[in-house]
């Protein structure tokens, strides 16, 4: 029914045809085992419910349009009709019970299947903050640990266990193409299992209202082959490259001299703040500011120059910089691949 | 529409007592509301306790003496309270007047001891969640004693005036007594919760 209706609405609103009906953040565009089984369940339940609705509508239409013999008004109920109607209603209630019991059992088994674990699981820690995501990878030794933000890379075909931690208020981690959502609740340790069957970039978004910029708290999950994933992790473990050009060095200097370093970490420099996202490899991330802009020198400069206009209320203040400093800092950050 | 009289009500009393009184049902309904509130606050206590590693959190077990004293006073107050309810049923104004004064004193007494009960908890409300919930439990019950005390005082004053000799007022006295029973009854689980659960 949803498919049908989708098509219908697509015809009604031509704009939609351009956009394409299934997006890169859609429960109907499933690319992971959990999301796929959820999609099947959704379609099945929606289909059964559509049939139920149709049956009720047929009964309603007949009830309203039936030819009736004239009877004095108000109508006195007749025992035979009463009996027949009672039987019909009891049958309908019995059918209802069967349907909802079926749904309950299906839901139960689907839920159980979502929690299944595997041996080659990868564990990642995800923290939700107003209004960005901090991501922590562990590896086998403490040196292999690293942090990044708003972008999670995972290997294709492997279960990934996310340890979800809410640091300030409640957020909710949701990549519909890969799995259902799970809240990040302060004071509680929640987990979510995600898994991608196909390589690709999947968008996710915070689903629990968390204040002013809840609308702009997106992230990407990038699923790639095991080899690519290993390459990415080993690159991430490296500290930031030291600037080679003069402008970049000026940028680094300004970054470290200004309050930026108090909030951001750039590994390999003295900047080790934790209020804001880790910027060690910011230049290599697809988006900045939790999915707001693609990462370019221009967008970085725009962001740093006036974060409060771009994302009103977010926790990064406008730090006064001269035009040269601004240019240099954004060039420097863009170079941190 | 034409009317035909089929029923004569003129012999009915002007005021119903007990279950025939609307105020009796109203009091009952309010008791249900407040009772639900008490149950919920107790549930919050148990919920917080179930989450805590140790209970009480960072606090000694509450000192038993003042709380137990309040319990005894409240239990003792039931005797005159029940008697008074009976006098009200018998519409014995003289006894009711004495009873109302006695019950006013029984309303004041637990409040005085209660002043010592809060420090006996051994923790402040803003120290942690344990402190918050025990203070809330005790505070909630205290407001109930206070509201019933005010009610009793006003009613006592009323009974001492010319308005006193009236079946309606006797009904009010009964409702007031019923409510006091409720105040005492709700205290018992709260007492058990605050003082004895940490000792289990």
């Amino acid at each position: 029914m949803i498919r049908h209706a989708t098509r219908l609405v697509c015809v009604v609103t031509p704009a939609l045809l351009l956009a394409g009906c299934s997006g890169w953040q859609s429960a109907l565009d499933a690319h992971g085992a959990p999301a796929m089984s959820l999609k099947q369940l959704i379609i099945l339940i929606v289909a059964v419910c559509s049939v139920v609705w149709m049956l009720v509508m047929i009964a309603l239409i007949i009830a309203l349009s039936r030819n009736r013999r004239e009877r004095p008004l108000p109508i006195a109920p007749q025992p035979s009709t009463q009996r027949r109607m009672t039987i019909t209603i009891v049958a309908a209630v019995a059918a209802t019970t069967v349907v909802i019991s079926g749904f309950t059992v299906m839901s139960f088994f689907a839920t159980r299947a979502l929690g299944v674990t595997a041996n080659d699981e990868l564990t990642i820690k995800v923290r939700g903050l107003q209004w960005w995501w901090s991501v922590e990878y562990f590896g086998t030794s403490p040196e292999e640990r690293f942090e990044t933000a708003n972008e999670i890379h995972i290997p294709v075909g492997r279960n990934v266990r996310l340890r979800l931690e809410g640091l300030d208020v409640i957020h909710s981690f949701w990549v519909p193409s890969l799995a259902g959502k799970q809240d990040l609740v302060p004071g509680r340790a929640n987990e979510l299992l995600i898994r991608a069957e196909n390589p690709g970039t999947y968008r996710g978004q915070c689903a629990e209202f968390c204040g002013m910029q809840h609308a702009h708290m997106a992230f990407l999950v990038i699923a790639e082959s095991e080899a690519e994933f290993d390459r990415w992790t080993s690159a991430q473990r490296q500290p930031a490259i030291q600037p080679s050009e003069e402008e970049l060095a000026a940028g680094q200097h300004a970054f470290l001299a200004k309050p930026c370093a108090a909030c951001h970490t750039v590994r390999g420099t003295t900047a080790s703040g934790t209020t804001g996202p880790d910027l060690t490899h910011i230049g290599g991330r697809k988006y900045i500011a939790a999915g707001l802009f693609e990462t370019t020198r221009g967008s970085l400069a725009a962001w740093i120059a006036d974060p409060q206009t771009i994302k009103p209320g977010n926790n990064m203040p406008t730090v006064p910089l001269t035009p040269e400093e601004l240019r240099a800092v954004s060039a420097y950050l863009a170079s941190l691949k | 529409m034409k009317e035909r009289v089929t029923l004569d009500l003129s012999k009915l009393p002007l005021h119903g007592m007990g279950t025939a009184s609307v105020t009796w049902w109203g009091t009952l309904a309010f008791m249900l509301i407040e009772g639900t509130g008490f149950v919920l606050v107790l549930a919050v206590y148990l919920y917080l306790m179930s989450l805590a590693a140790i209970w009480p959190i960072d606090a000694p077990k509450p000192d038993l003496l003042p709380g137990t004293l309040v319990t005894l006073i409240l239990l003792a107050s039931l005797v005159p309270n029940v008697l008074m309810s009976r006098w009200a049923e018998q519409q014995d104004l003289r006894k009711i007047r004495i009873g109302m004064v006695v019950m006013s004193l029984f309303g004041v007494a637990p409040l005085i001891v209660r002043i010592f009960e809060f420090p006996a908890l051994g923790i402040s409300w803003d120290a942690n969640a344990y402190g918050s919930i025990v203070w809330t439990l005790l505070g909630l019950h205290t407001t109930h004693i206070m509201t019933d005390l005010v009610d009793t005082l006003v009613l006592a004053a009323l009974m001492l005036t010319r308005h006193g000799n009236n079946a309606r007022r006797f009904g009010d006295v009964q409702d007031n007594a019923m409510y006091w029973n409720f105040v005492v009854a709700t205290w018992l689980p709260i007492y058990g919760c605050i003082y004895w659960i940490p000792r289990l």
Partner: protein
Amino acid sequence: MKANITGPDTRDTDLERSQLRAELAETWKTPRGLWGALATVDHKIIGRRYILTAFVFLALGGILAALMRIQLAQPEERLIGPDRYNQIFTMHGANMMFLFAVPVMEAMAVYLVPLMVGTRNIAFPRLNAFSYWIYLAGGALLWLSFALDMAPDVGWFAYVPLSGPQYGAGKRADIWAQMITFTELSALAVAVELVVTIFKQRAPGMTLDRIPVFVWAMLVTAFLVIMAMPAIMVASTSLILDRLVGTHFYNPAEGGDVLLWQHLFWFFGHPEVYIIFLPAAGMVSTMIEPFARRPAFGYLALVMALIATGILSFGLWVHHMFVAGLPRLGNSFFTASSMAIAIPAGIQIFCWLGTLWDGKPLFATPLLFIIGFIVTFVIGGLTGVMVASVPFDTQVHDTYFVVAHFHYVLIGGAVFPLLGAVHYWFPKITGRMMSETLGKWSFWLIFIGFNLTFFPMHILGLQGMPRRIYTYQPDMPWHGMNLFVSLSAIILVAGFLLFFLNAIRSARSGAAARDNPWDAPTLEWATASPPPSYNFARIPAVSSSHPLWNRSDILAVASGLRTDRRELVVTSLVTAEPQAREASPRNSIWPLWAAIATTVMLIWSIFSPWAVVWGSIPIAITLIGWFWPKGTPEDES
């Protein structure tokens, strides 16, 4: 003065019809003028006020909805900033739930229940007056704060820690919590009045199985209010304590818990939605009779379904918390209990279908709204069953799918019957008919506009659109459908506008209504339209469940009540045997003073805990003034 007309202790038995009416009118009247209006305790005047106020809040909430739809029509729309948007959707939700949907149902009951059970005023009429003033004050507080840019911005369920002391700066969350206190206070008061009215003031002979289904629905609803609202009182009070005096109920660092809030809120919040829905279902059961021209099929089943829904509603709250991290398989219990609600809901739907099947439908506007209700409510109910499934919900929770679900059940399931009920009871309340032509137009506009507005939201939700976002980026595939939704909302708003116009116009110049324009079977139609201040000159004596369908033009009544004091009949709980000729209080200004004192205390307590101490003194004084006997005949016994 009255003594000049008749002696004290005058009985209606002794009087001519016209003299009886004159004397009753004198005894029960509300004096003209401002003072009379402020001091009245007539349930009809208060009920009318209540209904009107609730509809004003509907219009205001609707305007907020329109603003949201304009903002969401396009990606990156800059009309409303995030701060304002968050206030707007919070205001929309809180306003619609606490200031419109719940009060409007109680308001209808305040007006109708005493008439339907055949008594002269609601039980505790002064409490009723108090309740209205408190409700008005709560609404004013919320809207004033919005005007001052101080409105709550934490969503209608105000989850902590966002609403807590650390993240909810300013007074916004306190205003939310105190608005809750106001509305719950008024709702609880009305619930108590309704329970006692229904238990003790039914006309002689109206045994339990002769109570109109709407009255049953209100009885169950009143019990839901009584059992559920304390939970939100506990929640909002502890939130204020956390914010104002530093308690730690919701602070995990000090042994508190964030999910405690959600448990408390939804333990109230889920019954809340049936507090809105059950009265609507009761309206349908009662209204369907005159339009199917047949008694509703399955009286017992309908009543049992209401009671079953009421009981079950306390065992479902966790279905709002499926992704909060409670044990997933434990959640499955709540899947089962939530889905079980489909059984009583289904029973009602099937009984209504059966009634229409065997009846002879009269397609007047109220029936159109009933039909529209069945069509849309079943969709909303079925999506409810969908989200009750834990795995299904992990994908659609907090998305527009849920927004679609609850507008289908709230508007389709509760507002449609309500609009039908307004058309249906309008002649009784105002003495004038609403225009059928405009009524049908507004029905079709609302019905079509509603479905076009809200159906696509299901798809938006599945396509990943979260709720409570003030904007979205152009590369998301949602803009086409959002534009469509926003345009459709124009039709919906036009329909509501037409409805309002119709009501206002008809109240002034509609055709005069007969006592019983729909040939309906229940007691409220046995008296004049609009009813006199005393409701019934003689209390009806009931001997069937459809007293006006007895195929005779004669109404059996009881006599023997006094006319010089406000007197009504108290009857026994089950069999409605007369027990007493109880007095009903006279008009009094004290409820207004008490409400003002309470309002001062509650608003002051947003700023200082001492308000509770000093503020209760004036409250106590006004309450004493309220209850102190004034030596009127009503005080006799």
